[in-house]
């Protein structure tokens, strides 16, 4: 059995290889259900990380993925890619235009609360870190099967807060307010 190819850092110069115009816009700005997802990537000194790559993956508004694993994938919104990339700015900020995803099946007969999977890469990060974004106003968060695996005092690091017309979630790589990262 061949072994996994090891990860290596994405380095500081990925932009011209991986970032494409519009790659952070999963929907058009005029989409009637569009939301903004914003935040900053922060290091262990509380400093912004200006050279991070943030990727998201999410279901469509009905909770479907355009992927064969999803039994309903043929009904997935064909106009919605589900995937986006944003390179952080000098102040560590990232931004996406997307829609709020629907609920997706979880383990057993559970349903997950609406969530967005996030991957973070950067110079100084030898491999990707993964986390999730949940929505602060979602009553479904209470019985989300993945949030339930996170110690209650750390769950807030996964829950975006409303900020004007945006949902804001900072990603803290290290320290007292460290984001919960997943082994997935």
């Amino acid at each position: 059995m061949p072994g996994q190819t090891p990860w290596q850092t994405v380095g500081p110069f990925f932009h011209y290889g991986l970032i494409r115009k519009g790659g952070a816009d999963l929907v058009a700005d005029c989409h009637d259900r569009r939301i903004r997802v914003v935040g900053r990537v922060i290091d262990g000194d509380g400093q912004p990380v200006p050279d991070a790559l943030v990727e998201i993956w999410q279901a469509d508004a009905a909770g479907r993925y355009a992927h064969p694993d999803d039994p309903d994938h043929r009904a997935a919104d064909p106009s919605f890619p589900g995937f986006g990339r944003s390179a952080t700015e000098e102040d560590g900020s990232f931004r996406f235009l997307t829609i709020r995803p629907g609920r997706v099946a979880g383990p057993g007969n559970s349903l997950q609360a609406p969530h967005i999977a996030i991957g973070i890469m950067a110079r100084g990060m030898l491999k990707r870190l993964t986390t999730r974004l949940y929505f602060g106003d979602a009553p479904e968060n209470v019985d989300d099967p993945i949030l339930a695996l996170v110690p209650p005092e750390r769950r807030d690091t996964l829950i975006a807060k409303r900020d004007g017309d945006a949902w804001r979630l900072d990603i803290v790589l290290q320290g007292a307010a460290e984001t919960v990262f997943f082994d997935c």
Partner: protein
Amino acid sequence: MAAPLPYNREDLASQPPSLFPAYGSTVKRAPSQAPIAIPHTLTETSGPTGTWDRLMGPAVADLTRQHGGEPIGERIVVAGRVLDENERPVANTVVELWQANAAGRYVHGKDQHPAPLDPNFTGAGHVVTDDQGRYRFVTIKPGAYPWRNHANAWRPAHLHFSLLGPAFATRLVTQMYFPGDPLIAIDPIANAVPPGALERLIARFELGVTEPEWALGYIFDIVLRGRRATPMEP
């Protein structure tokens, strides 16, 4: 609904740690708490597929023909297969590549290495694997370049690779090195990989891939996380 089959976990004997102090930038960017293991749900076992033109634009397989003239440097072919841990080809998945030019300089505003840019070389491409998981690029062998990690630090010549694979869980970003490069043994980024796994990042020179009177050929096979046969979580 039946639970999706999970993917294998990250293999700690293959993967670098987040914190590797010899690579100084990891010290403030590595989490201090262990990651929390979660079961694979549809979110982790699905991923973007089949929309590459929309996400990435048309394929760019030959990095030596993106400009009016030919780039300076040693022309090379880099080819290989994308497989999973079960030795199954990963078909129809995007492989992205970016790199420095022959002088060791990136087309990037923040690269301050005082080596020349090449007006005929950008150094970025992407292709989609065929039904056998195969990919092939034509490019220029990149130069080594200095960095400020420690005194007289030089990165070995390398190509950056990015793969999505079939699922959010199969994402891989890595670097390919060249056989016989003396800088590999003293590079903290390469040596963050556990001993025994580092050799997987070193391409193999292959006469069969070499184009006569045109370009040297290298093979670089890439192995993504495989899927388990049963839905049981450990």
